[in-house]
Structure formats: structure tokens, C-alpha cells
């Protein structure tokens, strides 16, 4: 089943760590957001393959925006 990972808060995308096709497991960092002067890693809770990374470095994400899909 595909797991959609969405932004928990408004933030800038500081670093994209994975790319489509990468194999990830629970707890791995997908991207790092920057908000409230904090670097906040976005982790996956699912094991699987990254099917899509929906953001680029420098993007601004709103709460609820799609960040990545892990399958």
C-alpha cells in the first residue's frame, strides 16, 4: 500500500535526501524542512520504495502538502 507523507507544518524545503526508487525503512529521513529556525527531518514510518518525491529544495510547503510517496 502506498503511504503518503505530508507536511506537518508550514516550512521551507532545505534538503531533499532521497530520490524516487530509493529503498527506505521506518525512521529514515526523506527530506529536511526548515521552519522556526529548526532543521526538521521528515521521516517515513513505512518500509518500502520511494515512488515519488513531490518537493524540490527551496520550495515552501503548507501544512498537509504532499512531500513523498513510499510504496
Amino acid at each position, binding site marked *: 500500500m502506498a503511504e503518503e507523507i505530508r507536511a*506537518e*507544518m*508550514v516550512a521551507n524545503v532545505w534538503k531533499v535526501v532521497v530520490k524516487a526508487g530509493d529503498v527506505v525503512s521506518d525512521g529514515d529521513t526523506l527530506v529536511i524542512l526548515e*521552519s*522556526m*529556525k*529548526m*532543521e*526538521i*527531518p521528515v*521521516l517515513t514510518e513505512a518500509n518500502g520504495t520511494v515512488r515519488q518525491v513531490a518537493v524540490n529544495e527551496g520550495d515552501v510547503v503548507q*501544512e498537509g502538502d504532499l512531500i513523498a510517496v513510499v510504496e
Partner: protein
Amino acid sequence: MTALATPLQTQETGSDLDPRDPEVRLAQLLDADSLVPLRPRDSSGVYAVRGRIDGARVVAYCTDATKMGGAMGAEGCRHIVDAIDTAVRERCPVIGLWHCGGARLAEGVESLDAVGQVFAAMIRASGRVPQISVILGPAAGGAAYGPALTDVVVMAPAGRIFVTGPDVVRSVTGEQVDMEALGGPSAHGKRSGVVHVIADSEDDAYTRARRITGLFARPGLFDLHAVRDGEDLGALLPDRPQRAYDVKPLLRHLLDTEQGPDGTQVSMFEELQAKWAPNIVIGLGRLGGRTVGVIANNPLRLGGCLDSLSAEKAARFVRMCDSFGVPLLVVVDVPGYLPGVGQEWDGVVRRGAKLLHAFSEAVVPRVTLVTRKAYGGAYIAMNSRSLGATTVFAWPTAEVAVMGAKAAVGILHRKKLAAAPDEEREALQAKLIEEHERIAGGVNRAMTIGVVDEVIDPKETRRRLAEALAAAPAGRGAHGNIPL
């Protein structure tokens, strides 16, 4: 509140082999051979007993899923009220095992009245004795609100909590949903916050309920000689101050460990509501042998910001610990309150006020440790000196301020910075930041004005925290534990 029919997998024979039989279930919760019925078994649908958990006296009751899906009738409800009143009289924890489709339809309003009396008994007992609920199957209608009124709710994988079931939801709103999606462990563990502990199995649910009961029933005494120290806990923080990290490993190192079955040291930290409002971590553990309640910002989630849900989660936990005399340890690393329209409209002010109220009202010893940053309104809310903290410690790396120095300088000196020539602006900003840190931020200024009592060595943290909590007079708040 309507009854929900549960399909019976086995015949209603009352055989001891039915895993849903209350005697079988209570035997798994309680110490071997400690079970003494409050009343003989009957057809009321509830079985209530006295027993022991790790040797401590408890009262427990279990709805009988082998009879009418465990539905609550007037007689069964009287047994629950009896059990709770007995626990209050004998000052021991009371544990409810729930597998119950709601009120008995056939008894009509009489059963509704009886369910209401169960609620009233729980509320009478609130804050006087710990009440723990274990959800083993469906707990619908009245059986949903019962556990929600208690202090800690543990849910087994087959547990389901909802006021109205999938059929009613479908007929009224047209939403298609099954029982698990509507009120299963994931729904209540992540979304609603109703459930405190998600268990891996029914067995695990009993184990977790026993552990939590033990933390309340056998709180122990601070044994300062037993506090092992010397580990550099500061090394658990990232090198860069703006880097997020998971606070839980730090908490596990702060608290006592015990020998696991394979000989390794395992943490005894029992986290509550782990997946709901995860930007704050709450839970029970032991420090120097004494049960303590822990509240910590978790920078890994939302940068550790306080928001409306996390403030409410922490507020209820603080009040619960206060009502049972459990000392509090508050670990602070908070960049502020989460800004946003959603937050303001969600009532971050109303719910944030609960946390201020809860801390300031609490009479248990409550010690704060600032590990990295404590900024703005969130600094006040996290058991600050002004709210009456017993002691406020800080690590040498800590910063206590209204906001980060760079942001503060940007506001305070906006005109000055704008007027400066482009090539000099950066140097000016650096100079102003340094000046600002000297007069307003950093941990030294906080110590001078007395809002931080002492900067301590991370290597001595466990001992210093235990000493400060042990030295404070024991207190216990005279109030109930309203499910905020």
C-alpha cells in the same frame, strides 16, 4: 447510546476455555491465585474482584463478552459502581477490562440510568485512586465514555471505541467506514488521543496495564545511592543547535533501567499517547527508584514547538500526576509556540492556558531541565520559575530568551540595520547579536535574575534531578483528573 451486537465465536457455555471469559481475562491481569470475587459470578454481564498486581492490592472488573456481547445492564453497572467505590474506600487502583457493546437495549432507560451511575462513580473516584481501562474488544456507546473518564486507557489490537458504530454512521452521514478504521488502535492512538497505550497483543495489553498500575501503586522512595551517573548525556544532543533530534533516547538515559530477560539494561519508560501530538512526550518512569512523570518537548516533531494539542496533552498529564502525588520532571527544548491561522482558530490560546494552569496549580515537586533552548511564551509554559517550579536547572549549552538573538535583533534594530550600508550590514548584525546575547539571552542572564537556579554538568544530571525532587516536600493536589 445504542447496543452493538458482537457476533459470538463460541457457544455461551460459560466454559473456562472461552478466552473472553472474565475469569480467564482477570487471571491474566492479576498475580497468580490472588483473585477473590467481590460477589459470586452471576448473569449481570460484569464480574468484579479483588486481587494483586506485583503484590499491590487492586480492584478489577471485567465486562462479560460471553453474555449478550458484554452489554451493560442495571445489575452489571451496579457491580462496576461497587468495585470503584470499594477501591476508593480501600485506596487502591481500580482496573476495568472492557469488551462491551453498550447499554442493554432490552432494559431500556433503566440501563441508561445505570450506565450514567457508572460514569458518576468514576468521576467521584477521579484523582483519588488511579483508574486504568483496558479495551479488549468493542467498547461502544456507554462503554466508550466509561474508559474515557479514567486516567489511562490501554488498547489491545482487537479493541474498538466509538459512540455510534459503522452502521449508524453510514445511515446518517453516508460515510463508509469499518469498525477498525472508525475506532481501532490507529484511530485513537494517532487521531483522537483517547487511547494512551497501544498494545501489540491482548497479552501485551495486560503486561502494560500491570506495569502502569505498578508505577502508581508502588511509587517507591528516592534512593539517591542507586542513581548511577557519569554518562555524558550532553553527547546525546546534535552538534548544531538548530538540528532536530529525537528526545526519547535522552529520556531513557535520564530514567532508571532494569535488567531485561536477555541480561541487557532496558528502559522502564512507559510513554503515554506516543503517536498523538508527538511534539510533546509524556510518560511514567522511575528515577532513583521513585515513580516520576516526565514531560519533554520533542524537537523531532514540529521542531518541538508547543501547539494547541500538545499543550492540552501535557496539561492533562500534569494534573493526573499532581492528583496522585507523582513528582514531575520537565525537559525543555522549545523554540516557541507554533504560529499559524489554524493554531489560533484551533484554540492554541484556550488550550495553552490549560498548561499554564496545570503547572502553576501543581503541588508535587516539579523540576525543570533546560537542555538547549527555551523561547518566548513556550518558555513560561514549560514549568518555568514564574509558574512555581521547584528547581530550574540548565545545561551549559542552554539559551533562555524571548526569541533567538538573530530574530530579536532583526526586530529591535530593524531601522538601524536598514539604514546601514549594504557592505556593513552583516558586521553590524553580528555585533548587535553579540550585544543582545550579553544583555538579554544566554543562560547567564537567566541565572542573574534567578529564573535558572543552576547550570549543571550533563554528566551529573541524574543525580542532581533526583536530589532536587527528593529534597522538595511531597505534595498531592486535591483535585480530580478531568479528561481535558
